[in-house]
């Protein structure tokens, strides 16, 4: 996929309800502080705003029905499950961002990131779409929108984005009306 392209997920895969959204990247090794990337999903209404501060999913705000899922490892590819059949009607889209953790000791940016991608697959890991984020001059980018799931009539589509933020999580918080 290229930035801006979309793919029909449910229309081309009848019966698809459970999605695996995977993220991956490589960072150039450094002996000093390194940029640490964190995926986050933001559930948005029709206006593109987060439904609430709690409608975020990331490593420390894991929502599951039994509340027992816990963060285990941060060195591997991150994955987020989406059960499309359970998404409330008021959720119009789910945006997947990856941010560089804003540690005060030199948080870094996407310039050291290579081979970043997001992909959507079935629960049995049959890949449906993959978007490789273009390797551009990302020295000023500290948050990147990788892609989004959005409703299209009665179906769900996936759109590749690849759009960066220069304003970090504060810019994300302002755009999506969330408190971070």
């Amino acid at each position, binding site marked *: 996929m290229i930035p801006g392209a979309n793919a029909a997920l449910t229309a081309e895969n009848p019966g698809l309800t459970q999605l695996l959204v995977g993220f991956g990247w490589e960072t150039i090794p450094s*002996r000093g502080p390194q940029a*640490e990337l964190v995926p986050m999903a933001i*559930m948005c209404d029709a206006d593109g705003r987060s439904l609430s501060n709690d409608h975020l999913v990331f490593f420390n705000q894991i*929502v599951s*029905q039994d509340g027992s899922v816990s963060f285990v490892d941060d060195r591997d590819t991150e994955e987020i499950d989406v059960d499309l059949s359970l*998404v*409330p009607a008021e959720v119009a889209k789910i945006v997947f961002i990856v941010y560089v953790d804003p540690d005060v000791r030199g948080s870094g940016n996407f310039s050291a990131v290579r081979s970043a991608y997001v992909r959507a697959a079935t629960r049995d890991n049959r890949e449906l779409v993959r978007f490789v984020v273009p390797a551009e001059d990302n020295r000023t980018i500290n948050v990147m929108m990788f892609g989004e799931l959005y409703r299209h009539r009665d179906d769900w589509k996936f759109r590749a984005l690849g759009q960066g933020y220069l304003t970090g999580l504060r810019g994300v918080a302002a755009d999506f009306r969330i408190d971070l």
Partner: protein
Amino acid sequence: MALNTSPTRTDVGYLRRRVKPVAAAAVPVEQPASALPTEPRQTEPSRPSPSPSSSMSSSSVPSSSGLSLSPSAPPAPAPARSAAPSAGLSLSSPTPAGNEPATAPVSTGLSLGHSSPAAPAVPPRASAPEGSLPFPAPGIDEVRELGDDDPVLRLNARESAIGSLIVTGAASAVWEDDELVTGAGTPDGSTTGSPVTTPGNRPLVGFDDSDALVSLRHVRRLRRALFVSRGTEPLGVQIFDGATVTVSPGDEKRMFVLYLLRIGGVIELRAEPVDRSASDESILKQFSFVLTPFLVTRASRSR
């Protein structure tokens, strides 16, 4: 005061983070909740926690003015009792158990030395299980100063996980990760015990200039931490969104230390009163911190 009583959300179960299978060795072992017997007053949020230093005698511990980061030394009880006051945080080996507090060595700083062989072993304790609901506690926006009136506050999951938690005014910091690896440091860069470094090549807890920092990206690796102020500047805390809270300096006899606990995915900050003249090692002992000896490894030789 409004309390944060938000229950665990169960209405967005359609979206969740998948936990990838990892090697068994990399998975933190969670102990049963019953293994949490001695956490200081986790169930008494509405009143100031009793001082864990109640067993200490302030008159028995002469004062010093700073931190001593001397390397470990063999226990030397007799000279220590008559030694002049320390000028710094003492990171030397503490005296054998039983010598303190009545005959504690002179120091007003937090003694971050290696535990003595006679020190009783601290049984492993686990963090609260994920999903458990702790007692209600105010958020950081509802408390201006942690102290007698407001001894505890709790950050939410986002505040607990983004950026750095900055502690100003700390003369020393002690940390314990989820595998009970424990260490301590001071603003001059001296450390004792074992450091805990994150994959981002930053200390899990450490000093950057005069500020103590907690790497919140890896908050799940942190079990608890303790920050002690010895100067005139009170302890202060700042998080990513700019919210701040200070810690009461206490009075002539008592001072407050800042105790940080991770409960599941959230951080709880507590002002714990201790005797102002408490020695460094006694504070560590009160909070059951046992510094982990740091083993420097080297590559194996091959011929």
